[in-house]
């Protein structure tokens, strides 16, 4: 397989503590799973099953109202336990309780000796189709579109992200079969990015290799999902498994879990959540935020919630709902800032270690919302040939034409995550980008 390499200089690796250690706990015996249509951009769900129905792994549970060919399948064999709706009866989750899991022998897990030449053809009727995503807009790949390429990032650079090399160990054959199956649709580009985050983001990779123009699209698949696709293509068996890195400063014992997509997180959070007392806060119990996905662009979930459809990490961070007395004036030896405006910035210059001080991260905003004042900061963590501040402002005012001119089709909200992180004016940038993209997407399908 040909792997391409790109080198990125602009970016930032946030020194967030709690990196997952390299041992794996098999948690595939978790018995509740959820399919969450809210994780899939642009997916308008129509129920194909009812509560109490028996379903098998790979059987569609939901179809997209705009394109019924696109479906979300059940990850396991079992019974539909609940259909969870939110405000305005919005469908949030279809919960499946898994039945007796067939215990596979080691032999069955091992890959076939030779790759069969008669792969199952990859199409929308395949249960793995939802794993292919399209850019611009981040929807499930539209089978009517011809992508310029199918990109797979071989390195996830998000804070505390799983090491994909490690995660794919033992699944190499499946991975190769997956690449072969994808190859039939469009040229597959396997890219290993070097450099600080966001080097490994699909957006960064595509921008570096072959930027998306208006009217074009690319598809992308998570590296672990390629293995799932490969297994399905060679054996017809749908087993959406991922090695998930569980970590974060508030995780008790960060390590990897082998999970099936959509798994209920209760067992993991029970094991990982710290005791309610933090020594430095006196007796005040500190809450923990559980994030499915990366700390920069993941989704908040409850302790008994479910792993996100496309996520391969779980991050636990302390909630920061405390006041900080004169926080803007204090030396801030333990505060992390990209700007070096705190004493910690000087300490980083010390020759002894890379980052010698215990840095505290929590979900506090560290300031209040202000207009954009400073310029030139975003460019330092935004490795695109795009003017980030100008594009953000175009999105705020809703100037669609200007957004197009400035390159909106080349970005996804996650590409702005670091801009949002370092922004001294504390603007929520990712929702602004998503909203602008949604307007464009709806215009495109209208």
């Amino acid at each position, binding site marked *: 397989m040909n792997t391409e390499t790109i080198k990125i200089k602009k970016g930032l690796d*946030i020194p*967030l503590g709690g990196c997952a250690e390299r041992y794996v706990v098999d948690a595939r015996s978790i018995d509740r799973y959820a399919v969450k249509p809210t994780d899939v951009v642009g997916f308008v769900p129509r129920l194909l099953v009812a509560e109490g129905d028996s379903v098998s792994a790979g059987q569609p549970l939901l179809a997209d109202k705009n394109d019924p060919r696109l479906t979300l399948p059940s990850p396991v064999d079992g019974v539909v336990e609940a259909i969870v709706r939110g405000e305005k009866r919005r469908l949030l989750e279809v919960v499946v309780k898994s039945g007796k899991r067939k215990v596979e022998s080691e032999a069955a897990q091992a890959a076939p000796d030779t790759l069969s030449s008669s792969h199952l053809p990859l199409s929308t009727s395949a249960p793995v189709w939802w794993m292919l995503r399209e850019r611009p807009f981040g929807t499930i790949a539209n089978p009517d579109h011809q992508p310029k390429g199918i990109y797979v990032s071989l390195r996830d650079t998000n804070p505390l992200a799983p090491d994909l090399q490690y995660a794919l160990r033992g699944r190499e054959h499946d991975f190769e079969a997956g690449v072969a199956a994808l190859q039939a649709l469009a040229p597959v580009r396997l890219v290993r990015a070097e450099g600080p985050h966001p080097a490994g983001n699909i957006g960064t990779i595509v921008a570096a290799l072959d930027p998306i*123009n208006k009217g074009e699209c690319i598809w992308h698949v998570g590296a672990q999902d390629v293995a799932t696709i490969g297994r399905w293509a060679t054996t017809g068996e749908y087993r959406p498994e991922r090695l998930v890195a569980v970590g974060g400063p508030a995780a008790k014992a960060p390590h990897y879990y082998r999970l099936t997509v959509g798994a209920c997180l209760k067992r993991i959070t029970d094991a990982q959540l710290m005791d309610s007392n933090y020594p430095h806060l006196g007796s005040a119990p500190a809450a923990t*935020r559980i*994030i499915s996905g990366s*700390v*920069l662009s*993941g*989704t*908040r979930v409850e302790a008994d919630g479910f792993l996100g459809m496309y996520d391969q990490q779980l991050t636990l*961070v302390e909630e920061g*709902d*405390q*006041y900080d*007395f*004169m*926080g*803007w*004036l204090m030396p*801030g030896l333990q*505060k*992390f*800032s990209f*700007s*070096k*405006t*705190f004493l910690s910035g000087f300490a980083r210059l010390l020759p002894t270690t890379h980052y010698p001080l215990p840095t505290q*991260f*929590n*979900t*506090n*905003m*560290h*300031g*209040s919302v*202000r*207009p*954009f*004042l*400073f*310029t*030139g900061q975003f*460019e330092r963590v935004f490795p695109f*040939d*795009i*003017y980030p*501040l*100008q594009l953000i402002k175009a999105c705020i005012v809703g100037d669609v034409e200007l957004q197009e*001119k*400035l390159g909106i089709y080349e970005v996804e909200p996650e590409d702005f*995550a670091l801009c*949002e*992180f*370092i*922004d*001294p*004016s*504390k603007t*929520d940038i*990712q929702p602004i980008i998503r909203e602008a993209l949604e307007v464009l997407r709806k215009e495109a399908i209208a």
Partner: protein
Amino acid sequence: MNMKWLSDWFEKIEPKGKWAWLGSTYEAFHTFAFTPKTVTRSGAHIRDAVDMKRSIIIVVIALIPALLFGMWNIGYQTNLAAGTDWGFWHCFWFGLLRMLPMIVVSYVVGLFIEFAFAQVRHHEVNEGFLATGLLIPMIVPVTTPLWQLALAVAFAVIIGKEVFGGSGMNFLNPALVARAFLFFSYPTHMSGDKVWIANDLWGSDAIAGATPMGELAAGMHPTASALDMLLGTIPGSTCETSVIAIALGAILLLFTGIASWRIMLSVFLGGGLMGLLFNAIGYNEYMQLPFYYHFLMGGFAFGAVFMATDPVTAAQTNTGKWIYGLLIGAFAVLLRVCNPAYPEGMMLSILFMNCMAPLIDHCVVARNIKMRERRLAK
């Protein structure tokens, strides 16, 4: 530090009901005392520790060396002119007593207007004026009457900033708007050779003392040596004379990343190139002046470090910043040498380029748009 009693007190007095209109003022004081406990909602769940207050306070800290030196120099210049023999502390206290009323007037007038506007608009009070309010008294002659200063601050905040929507929306540097206001409204108080040295006694006769640029404009070679100018022991606006003190501030601004090194460097480059060009022409005394004298005289260094780098009014793109800085430096020297009516070209040069910055950015961004169109056409 456990300040729970104070945070509890703040929560208790939060204006509600018929007092809710005081929200902006309350927010300003509350966030001054405590970084709020607001948590992220989505997206980036953790955030950088830096915020607007921290960024602005770095600018204020960077101004302190120049401010302290300026205070001492005010006393020192009076001492020299009067032929007395004051010690270090005498000079400093003398200057401190002249500067403090100016700083207080600037802050009180400016912050009052800022709070009033924020209150009426139900906006947050922006921190930007903490820097502007200190900058204004630092760039005027020490003899500026307080009432003129108050008028200038009011003009700068209202016309220079608030009419456009407040901090971040203005296109002219408010501190320079204040100085320009004084310069054109009260020219006799702002230039000449009778305004730069503070009087020993409040309000008696003016003391003559020309700045190097005043002398040059009059066709003389400056009496001060280059070393004096570097140290700043010369007459001039209150706190802009010492290039060394300004350099200390510049180091902090550059290290913390608050000011753009591209702008700072390119202003000096532009000024230097223009100076060299005039050297090559060499028509008169001013043109023959070694190019680095321009960096040492007047407000060039102060303007390059603290004024041109104001991110709101500067060019916003990196390429634009180079062009913006180069032209500021070049125009400043051009104005100094070729227009003796305005001995200080820096202020006008920066204000002019403030007006041009959006155009520069427009051209830079247009190139990016063109690139994208070409790529699509291929």
